[in-house]
């Protein structure tokens, strides 16, 4: 049975309590969630603002593909991804990933898989404003390595 999938790219904030509760559908034994927040400091500079933009349509399609790949690897009952766009400030909630599964192991793994690929595949871009300058962020090598490790584990399992 296909998992219940919710995807939202929005400027508005979200309620993690309500989003988590909504994942507790029939059959669920465990829910794992990840909440990303805007950090106060990045690369030793004070962050004033983080401006997020995306490619409408393509972004949602890519998130769906990532969730479907997770669904092929683990037993998922429901998955929610909410990603904010626009101007965000230190401490703001930026991304929510929630996964419901019959058992905790699948929920932990699928949640980590989804956030790891969100960082390297979904068409979002961040511009960071500090007191001295502004700059478009570049993909971190550690994020690329983490996503590659999932692909290697997929290859090993075949």
């Amino acid at each position: 049975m296909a998992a219940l999938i919710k995807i939202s790219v929005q400027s508005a904030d979200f309620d993690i309590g309500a989003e988590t509760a909504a994942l507790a559908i029939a059959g669920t034994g465990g829910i794992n969630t990840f909440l990303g927040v805007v950090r106060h400091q990045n690369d030793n500079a004070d962050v004033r603002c983080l401006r997020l933009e995306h490619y409408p349509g393509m972004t949602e399609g890519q998130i769906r593909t990532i969730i479907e790949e997770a669904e092929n690897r683990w037993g998922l009952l429901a998955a929610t991804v909410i990603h904010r766009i626009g101007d965000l400030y230190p401490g703001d909630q930026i991304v929510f990933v929630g996964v419901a599964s019959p058992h905790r192991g699948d929920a932990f793994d699928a949640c980590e898989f989804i956030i790891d690929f969100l960082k390297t595949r979904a068409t979002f871009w961040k511009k960071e404003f500090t007191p001295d300058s502004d700059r478009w962020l570049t993909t971190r090598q550690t994020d690329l390595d983490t996503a590659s490790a999932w692909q290697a584990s997929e290859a090993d399992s075949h």
Partner: protein
Amino acid sequence: MSEVTVQFFASLREALGKDRVTVLLDGSLSVGDLIIKIGALEDAAWQTALESPDILVAVNQTLVERSHEVQPGDEVAFLPPVTGG
């Protein structure tokens, strides 16, 4: 003749100073050739920017290789490295 819409995002949009251009095509052509055509229409610096190996290309919202044939009516987008999450 038919049009393709070409979009630019984030750092690329700021570097080029436009978020989209429209290119007239009289048949299909590869992404690589489309970049050359855009360079001729706009500025040679655009060709250099779009040929960077860091830039990804999407046609109709799916990532493609530079050899992909663009058809009249397609939606083409050039994408800098993504930084979501």
